[in-house]
């Protein structure tokens, strides 16, 4: 079973360009992999489903391909496969000091029962709540792939304990769009091709949204300095700066701040 290389991007979003079809679909249908078509079943619906929708299904998909050569070819660590089992059924042994935590994420409340205090906000999002848009890059606050907003401020969710942000307003990449309406910076990233592999992109966009609110995007030089906490190994920096500049100049951005 072979996959298009861009499969690894599918927790990112785009309406048209980023539809990711396993080549295997020639003999294995979308339904057979995902256990059913999303509502409507059109190309756009499939895309939306892949990119925004039902993350549990995405993780199930990951689990399904975990045993295949394809997963190894893509890189199990990159896909987070090692943790997928634990994500779906957390260990039944209670952790030392386990505590109940309620997180407010993208306007909704998420109770987390018997949470191990060691769990970072990033791991809570990805492994407990299936909000896999925020990415684990370095896991040490050096790359910015995990950037989310806490009370409107950008932070590295990998260095933050989930328990310590109880009661705070957390916004992840999944919470930036309003329904089908992408945030102007998300639109700008697509328009200006602000990514290649896409792995750093959710962090870049969360960081960029905060940057625009902070007013630190007056010049290209300033954008570069104030985006320095988000690394892009593909080197899409030129287009990332272009996207942020465009969003800055788009009146729709101020309306969303």
């Amino acid at each position: 079973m072979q996959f298009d290389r861009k499969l690894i991007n599918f927790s990112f979003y785009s309406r048209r360009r980023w539809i990711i079809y396993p080549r295997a679909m020639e003999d294995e249908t979308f339904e057979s992999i995902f256990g059913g078509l999303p509502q409507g079943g059109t190309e756009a619906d499939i895309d939306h489903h892949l990119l925004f929708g039902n993350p549990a299904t995405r993780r199930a998909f990951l689990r399904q391909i975990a045993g295949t050569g394809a997963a190894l070819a893509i890189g199990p660590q990159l896909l987070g496969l090692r943790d997928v089992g634990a994500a779906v059924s957390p260990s039944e042994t209670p952790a030392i000091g386990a505590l109940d935590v309620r997180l407010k994420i993208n306007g909704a409340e998420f109770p987390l029962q018997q949470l191990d205090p060691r769990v970072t906000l990033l791991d809570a999002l990805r492994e407990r709540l299936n909000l896999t848009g925020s990415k684990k890059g370095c896991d040490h606050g050096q790359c910015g792939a995990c950037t989310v907003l806490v009370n409107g401020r950008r932070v590295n969710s990998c260095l933050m304990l989930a328990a310590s942000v109880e009661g705070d307003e957390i916004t992840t990449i999944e919470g930036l769009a309003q329904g089908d309406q992408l945030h102007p910076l998300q639109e700008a990233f697509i328009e200006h091709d602000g990514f290649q592999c896409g792995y750093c992109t959710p962090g870049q966009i969360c960081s960029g949204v905060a940057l625009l609110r902070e007013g630190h995007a007056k010049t290209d030089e300033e954008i570069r300095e104030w985006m320095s906490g988000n690394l892009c190994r593909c080197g899409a920096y030129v287009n990332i700066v272009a996207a942020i500049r465009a969003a800055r100049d788009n009146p729709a951005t101020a309306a969303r701040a």
Partner: protein
Amino acid sequence: MNPFTYARATDPQQAVAAIEASPQAKFLGGGTNLIDLMKMGVEVPSQLIDISRLPLAQVEELPDGKGVRIGALARNSNVAEHPLITQRYPVLSQAFLGGASPQLRNMATVGGNLLQRTRCYYFCDPAFPQCNKRKAGSGCGALDGFNRIHAILGQSEQCIATNPSDMCVALAALDAVVRVQGPKGEREIAIGDFHRLPGNTPNVDTNLQANELIIAVDLPPMPFAVRSHYLKMRDRASYAFALVSVAVVLDVGPDGKIKDARIALGGVAHKPWRAPEAEKALVGKTADERSFTAAAQAALAGAKARKHNKFKIELAKRTIIRALSTVAAMPS
């Protein structure tokens, strides 16, 4: 990460009582250094006492012109952009903005920044068996290892690690005072006495006691600090630790003569390195490159390098000269 319990402190007194009751516990502020080191297995606290929500995050003017007080839990980004800091102590604002990334600055607290641990590779990775700071008596892997980022001043045969903070370098130049609370009440520690040189106990970074909580940093009034500058040299243009950094405050009279000077260096020693010999060399002299060069020579007179960090001595001198020149060129 080792297992630990988590508790939120309700007020500073309760936080101090909690850490007294549990000596293996640690305070959790922004977590940017502590959580990272816990992931590496360098820090293994039995409990985290979350102090991040205590009401110690104000930046405020002290009465009777006694300067400015920065709450220990003020976030680096907030202090950097606070008008009292940008207007009166620009060197401190610049030091904050020269450090880390916007995300980390939004998290990191002033108290935590004072307690930042070294970025020495041999300390940060327990896979290296030798580190006197991590494990007393185990040796120092850096002495004859890859020591490009290591100390050139004040080091010992036990440890050549450097303090990684930018903020502390500016605080050293500004004669800041650290306010701490212990079980018996508050006490003050001058910034110069807060961090330690490694000597034979490199495992002890600071003179803060285990049962004390940092509650604030006071900046005494220093009107001439409006002419100040932080210059940081690093391997990339942004978001990297200093190889060498310099905080400079300069008081130049209308006659072009230097009335007073403050110089502190970062990236060169186990603590933020104040350079009184360099300051002394400047007072009474004309603010020009010749006196700046003499000051730089004086600051680095006692420097000793190891195999890979010789470049730091010359780099530090040039950085001092450039920082002084920058301040001298500022309108008075």
